[in-house]
C-alpha cells in the first residue's frame, strides 16, 4: 500500500535525505524543511521503499499539504 508524506508547513525544502528505491524504516527523517528560522523534520510514517520524490534541495515556496514523498 502506498503512503504519501505531505509537507506540514509552508516554506523551503532544505535537504532531501532519500531517493527513489531507498528502503526506509518508520521514524526515519525523509526530508527537512526550513521555516521561521527552524528546521522541520518530516519522518517516515511507515517502513517501506521510496517510490516517488517530488521535491528537491533548496526548493522555495512549497505549500503545506504538498505530496512530497511516496512510500510503498
Amino acid at each position: 500500500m502506498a503512503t504519501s508524506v505531505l509537507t506540514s508547513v509552508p516554506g523551503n525544502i532544505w535537504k532531501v535525505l532519500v531517493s527513489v528505491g531507498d528502503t526506509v524504516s518508520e521514524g526515519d527523517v525523509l526530508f527537512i524543511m526550513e521555516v521561521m528560522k527552524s528546521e522541520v523534520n518530516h519522518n517516515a510514517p511507515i517502513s517501506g521503499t521510496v517510490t516517488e520524490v517530488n521535491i528537491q534541495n533548496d526548493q522555495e515556496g512549497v505549500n503545506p499539504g504538498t505530496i512530497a514523498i511516496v512510500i510503498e
Partner: protein
Amino acid sequence: MFEVIKKGLETSLQDYPGRVGFLNQGFPPSGPMDSWSFRLANLLVGNKVEEAALECQYTGPSLKFESDHVIAICGGDMQPKIDGTAVPLWESILIKKGQTLELSFCLTGARTYIAFSGSIQSELWLGSKSTFHKAAVGGIDGRAIQEGQKISLGNSNSKIGKKIKADVIPEMSKNGVWEIEVVRGPNDDWLDNNGYQTFLDAKWKLQARSDRTGFRLDGPLLSFNEKATNKSPEHGYEPSNIIDQGYPIGGINLAGQTPIILVNDGPSMGGFIVPFTVPSASFWKLGQAKPSEYFKFKEISVEEAQDMRSYQTLICSEESII
C-alpha cells in the same frame, strides 16, 4: 485542563496588547501577530479581548481536554477537528471531557488562535502573560507549549453557537499578494526619490527565514541619498548603516539591501535605517502571510493609520457577535 498531545510548530500563549511599556529595557511587546482574529476569538467565548489565548503558527497542536469547555478558533484555517469531525472557525463550540482538538497545516493564512472561556491560567510577567521565548519569559515556562504538558483553564461559563458577523471577519489573501500599509519614516530621507519609489512599486517576497522577531523580504536594490553615502564614520560603512537608534515596532529595517520588518518580538534598537514603518492595524496581514507570498506596500498618513486602528478596536467588540 487540557493535555498537549502534539505541540504544533510553535504554539505559544499570548495576550493583547502584550508587554507594552518595556521597550526601553529591551522587552518587545510580543502579543498576537493577528490581534484582529485574536480579539474576536476571545469575544466568542465571553472573555475580555485582552485575555491570554494560544497562537498557533503554520501547523497547529492537538489538545486533549480533561473537562467540558467552550472554545473558539479564529484566524487561518488549520482544518480543526474534534475527535476527527471537522468543527467551524469563527464560532464558539463545546469540546467535551476526553475529546481531542486537532489542528493541522494551514489551508489559508498562517496563524490561528484558540481562545478558551475563562482563559488560560498563567502568571503575569512585567504585566503580561505573553510568551517571549527568546528571553524565556511569560506564557507557560517562558516558551512554546510542549508535548505532555497539562495546562489549566479558568471556569468555562460561556454559550456555544455564538458567531462573528460575516463583514468583520478579516479576509485572507487569495492570490498570495498582500497589500500592506506603511507610513514614512523615521529615516525615509536616507533613500533617494528613486529608492523611495522602487520600494513602493516593487512586489516583495517574504523569506522562509522569518519569524516573530523579523520578516525578511526579497526584492529590488534600493538607492540612497548623499546622507547615506557621505556621512561621518560613526554611522558605519554601509549606506544603510546609521548611528544606533531606537526602532519602532513595525519598523522596516534596511539591513544592507534586505528589508526586515521588525514585528512583535523584534529588537528595540540597532544601527540600520528604518525608511518606513508598518502601522499596528496592518500587523494582522503580516501574521497571516506565508513564506514566498508577496507584499505590496501602500503609503498612508499617520492619521489614516490611526483611523484604521480605531476601526479595528470598534469592530473587535460585542457588537460583532451574533
